[in-house]
């Protein structure tokens, strides 16, 4: 071989010569003695190279021999190899199908394997629905416990306590069986002292519940705090967090979620319910081998479980599936769509049969008005969308700033004290205003409600003209004094909720933010709606109103404005699109309102995206430094693979393992000195021709196992990755064959590949690392962490914030 010619050629063609010198300086040896023949007879079994028919069966034997326990599993805080998991599942499926022709038992086994997915979805739906029912009923009871207790049975909440007795029309809350704390202690409920006693008991109960919650979280399952959705997004993209979806996390999250919601804090239970449902999914996966051993299949089940979680939180099965598709899942094959729908439906049906709200409704704020809306009302709806977008961007910025402060300063050292102080402030500020004293779900339900003649709440205290009432169709009326009081109380509640939620989301108790955002939006929407209604009533002769809103007509529905406002604010914070609209119209049953909801959701997303690119969950992922490769953004820079790969210019050369010349001692030294999670295997150090890739964990397990179980393996034994052992003198110790743990098909790109394509490959295939070659020789390696750091660097963010490997 003309080496000089090769060198000349390489100097002319390569652009950065210094990197290429190492490769170009080696001797180019095309002899075939070191490596396997290119047409490996194991593939076809037809050639007779080097030995004959026996070799055709060796692959079959390698495959049938059981892998060591532990090989093929992953370490904590590592990324899975999607390609390997998927191909393992296909192999398993092929094996079962081929064996099913042998005996009846094998046929039954193959049929049951096919059905195991559906059976698993059924179990997940049942368990998630039951847990959601338990959470709902307990949360209702404990929320009311802050205000009083039922004498007819302490387990009844306020509504159920007064179920049997006759309440008056104007005062629907009072009944003899329900006693507030001041009535119980003092004997009467009126007067300043009784008010102060009620206030005091309310704050004491709130503090007790939240302290209990944070102590349980800290003592038993620290992973149970927060919302859970950012971490579940990361897990579904291929990351491993051991214990995050375990039994103790499930129990503690369920229990403390009830406590946190009942303590009156400004948080919701939808996000944590998704976490609870995913825990159920993960735990039930252990019943089926197909899902227990394969991480990729397990993530399909977790996507479906997330859909079931949202479905029971909102009573919206279709919205749940779309939420899982849009927000939570990374890969969503079509088969998962149908199974997620099944799981969501079973969960919703289970919850309905437990019947937590006593009237076969799934959610507390199911409204069913069908008033038409007019085209001109789109203007206030778009205004609500703008408000939602602005609030969403403001909330994300301030919440992330506060969470960053919690992460980096001394504030993070006192989690229990932080929860105590925030609960105290929330309870003290919330009690005087009746709209903050009631639970947030009740508030939203009242705001969505359209006022009819049967309503007697303060918000519906309009000036009634009795002569013109016909049935339930009330015209627009002038606001009575009750409405004005309600308006300024609601405005105060809005201000309080806007600020207190910033400090509440992210504390060390389970906290969701769907309900608080919907509350902020509903209050803003209702205020605007009542304002529009009064404007239309007093100025019905203006041009904009005269066409469609004549006197005596019922044209403006403030409840609809509240709904649209809730959707706008939720969209501004989470940046959901289709799933939000579907959830909202499944919540309300109003298909006529799809257009206003869509208009508001779109406007709010555009406004919020103009201010800040990320939704709240992506912002939290970036704050925590999870290795999540965003699937939605375009990579638009012109860098090449060789700019990103390691080793860089001044780094030591790539750590490789040769295929047949290193001893056990050498390999162990490499493992101890470096912390890489995988090593490329090359033919020899001189040629650097790639054979495959081997993972660190598999190497460690195999070597340890070989030292213990296989005889003759000592530190000077040679490790070989080829099919046949290299020829050695007979006095040398027995050799260790590790071909079974070698990945023979690692992904490679050339050094001139644009990074756009490399990022695309990482996203679409779910790679963990990719080898870089130059002219067929191994040059370097790009890992997912390198890609993330590169993206962060180009976006002028701190590349050191990518923490995990």
């Amino acid at each position, binding site marked *: 071989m003309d080496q000089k010619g090769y060198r000349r050629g390489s100097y002319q063609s390569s652009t950065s010569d210094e990197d290429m010198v190492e490769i170009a300086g080696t001797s180019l040896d095309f002899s075939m003695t070191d490596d396997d023949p290119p047409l490996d007879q194991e593939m076809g079994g037809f050639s007779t190279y080097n030995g004959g028919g026996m070799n055709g069966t060796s692959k079959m034997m390698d495959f049938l021999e059981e892998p060591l326990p*532990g090989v093929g599993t992953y*370490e904590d805080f590592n990324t899975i190899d999607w390609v390997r998991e998927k191909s393992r599942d296909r192999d398993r499926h092929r094996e079962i199908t081929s064996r099913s022709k042998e005996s009846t038992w094998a046929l039954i*086994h193959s049929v049951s394997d096919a059905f195991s997915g559906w059976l698993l979805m059924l*179990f997940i739906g*049942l368990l998630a629905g*039951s847990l959601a029912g*338990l959470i709902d*009923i*307990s949360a209702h*009871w404990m929320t009311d416990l802050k205000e009083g207790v039922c004498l007819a049975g302490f*387990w009844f909440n306020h509504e*159920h306590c007064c*179920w*049997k*007795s*006759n*309440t*008056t*029309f*104007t005062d*629907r809350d009072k009944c003899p069986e329900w006693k507030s704390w001041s009535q119980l202690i003092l004997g009467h409920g009126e007067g300043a002292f009784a008010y102060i006693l009620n206030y005091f008991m309310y704050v004491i109960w709130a503090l007790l519940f939240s302290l*209990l919650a944070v102590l349980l979280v*800290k*003592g*038993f399952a*620290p*992973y149970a*705090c927060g919302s859970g959705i950012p*971490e579940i997004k990361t897990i579904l993209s291929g990351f491993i*967090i051991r*214990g995050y979806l375990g039994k*103790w996390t499930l*129990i503690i999250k369920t*229990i403390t979620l*009830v406590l946190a919601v009942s303590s009156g804090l400004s948080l919701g239970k939808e996000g944590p319910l998704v976490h609870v449902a995913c825990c159920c999914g993960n735990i039930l996966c252990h*019943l089926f*081998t197909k899902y227990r051993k394969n991480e990729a299949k397990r993530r399909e089940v977790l996507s479906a479980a997330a859909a079931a979680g949202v479905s029971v939180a909102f009573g919206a099965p279709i919205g749940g599936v779309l939420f899982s598709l849009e927000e939570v899942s990374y890969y969503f094959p079509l088969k998962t769509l149908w199974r997620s729908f099944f799981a969501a439906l079973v969960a919703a049906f*289970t919850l309905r*049969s*437990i*019947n937590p709200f*006593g*009237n*076969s409704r799934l959610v507390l704020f199911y409204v069913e008005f069908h008033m038409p809306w007019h085209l001109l009302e789109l203007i206030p709806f778009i205004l609500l969308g703008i408000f939602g977008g602005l609030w969403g961007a403001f909330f994300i910025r301030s919440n992330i700033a506060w*969470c*960053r402060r*919690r*992460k980096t300063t001394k504030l*993070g050292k006192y*989690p229990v004290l932080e929860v105590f102080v925030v609960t105290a402030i929330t309870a003290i500020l919330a009690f005087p205003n009746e709209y903050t004293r009631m639970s947030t779900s009740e508030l939203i339900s009242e705001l969505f409600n359209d006022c009819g*003649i*049967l309503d007697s709440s303060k918000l519906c205290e309009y000036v009634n003209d009795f002569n013109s009432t016909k*049935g*339930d169709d009330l015209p627009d009326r002038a606001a009575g004094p009750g409405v004005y009081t309600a308006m300024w109380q609601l405005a105060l509640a809005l201000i309080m909720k806007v600020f207190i939620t910033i400090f509440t989301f*992210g504390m060390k108790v389970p906290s969701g933010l769907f309900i608080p955002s919907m509350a902020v939006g509903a209050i803003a929407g209702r205020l605007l709606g009542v304002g529009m209604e009064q404007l239309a009533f007093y100025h019905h002769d203006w041009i904009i109103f005269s066409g469609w809103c004549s006197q005596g007509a019922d044209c403006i529905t403030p409840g609809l404005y509240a709904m649209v406002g809730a959707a706008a604010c939720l969209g501004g914070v989470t940046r959901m699109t289709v799933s939000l609209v579907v959830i909202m119209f499944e919540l309300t049953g109003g298909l006529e309102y799809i257009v206003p909801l869509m208009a508001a959701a779109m406007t709010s997303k555009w406004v919020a995206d103009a201010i800040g690119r990320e939704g709240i969950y992506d912002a939290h992922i970036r*704050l925590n430094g999870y290795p999540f490769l965003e699937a939605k953004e375009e990579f638009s820079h012109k860098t090449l693979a060789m700019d990103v790969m390691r080793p860089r210019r001044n780094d030591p050369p790539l750590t490789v393992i040769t295929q047949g010349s290193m001893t056990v001692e050498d390999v162990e030294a490499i493992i*101890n000195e470096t912390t890489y999670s995988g090593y490329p295997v090359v033919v020899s150090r001189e040629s650097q021709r790639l054979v495959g890739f081997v993972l660190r*964990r598999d190497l*460690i*397990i195999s070597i340890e196992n070989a030292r213990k179980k296989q005889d003759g393996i000592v530190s000077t034994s040679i490790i070989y990755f080829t099919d046949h052992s290299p020829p050695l003198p007979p006095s040398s110790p027995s050799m260790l064959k590790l071909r079974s743990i070698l990945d023979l098909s690692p992904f490679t790109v050339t050094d001139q590949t644009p990074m756009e394509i490399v990022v695309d490959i990482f996203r679409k295939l779910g790679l963990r690392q990719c080898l870089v070659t130059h002219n067929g020789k191994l040059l370097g390696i790009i890992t997912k962490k390198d890609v993330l750091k590169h993206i962060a660097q180009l976006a002028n963010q701190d590349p050191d914030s990518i923490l995990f490997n």
Partner: protein
Amino acid sequence: MFAQCVWKCASSLLLVALLCCILSPPAQAGKSSEDIRCKCICPPYRNISGHIYNKNVSQKDCNCLHVVEPMPVPGNDVEAYCLLCECKYEERSTTTIKVIIIIYLSVVGALLLYMAFLVLVDPLIRKPDAYTQPLHNEEENEDARSLATVPTPSGARANTVLERVEGAQQRWKRQVQEQRKTVFDRHKMLS
């Protein structure tokens, strides 16, 4: 493999049975007399104030004529009055509510007792070693993260049930301490 299959089938059947037990109270107990009602809300009409009427009748009898007693308006006005009233049939299950609340309170009580046991009693029973400080923030003691991180099958087979339970409890405590370090001390996750 057959034994594994039998074990898995048995555990799935057990799970289904448990779920049925949880769900059967609502299925059975909906029909006791104190669990159904028909609620009619009648608004103010002329000079009669608004009123709410409750009566436990079945669903087919749930209308204004059966429930609103005594009728506050004379005979020819009844129809106009009843058009304004809205009657709804509602069902609930008190047994479900009672069972769920009692389950919840017992779980919370059990967890509190266990926490008290771990904090107060456990350190007195065991000899103090590195793993018996369950609720305090851990100092940063980085263990050598080499081959020790790989889970190897434990050498000494713990034979008695008590030793196995203790071993499991120690492992769980270690896991919780790791989690606590990650979340509360190093703020690596769940900021």
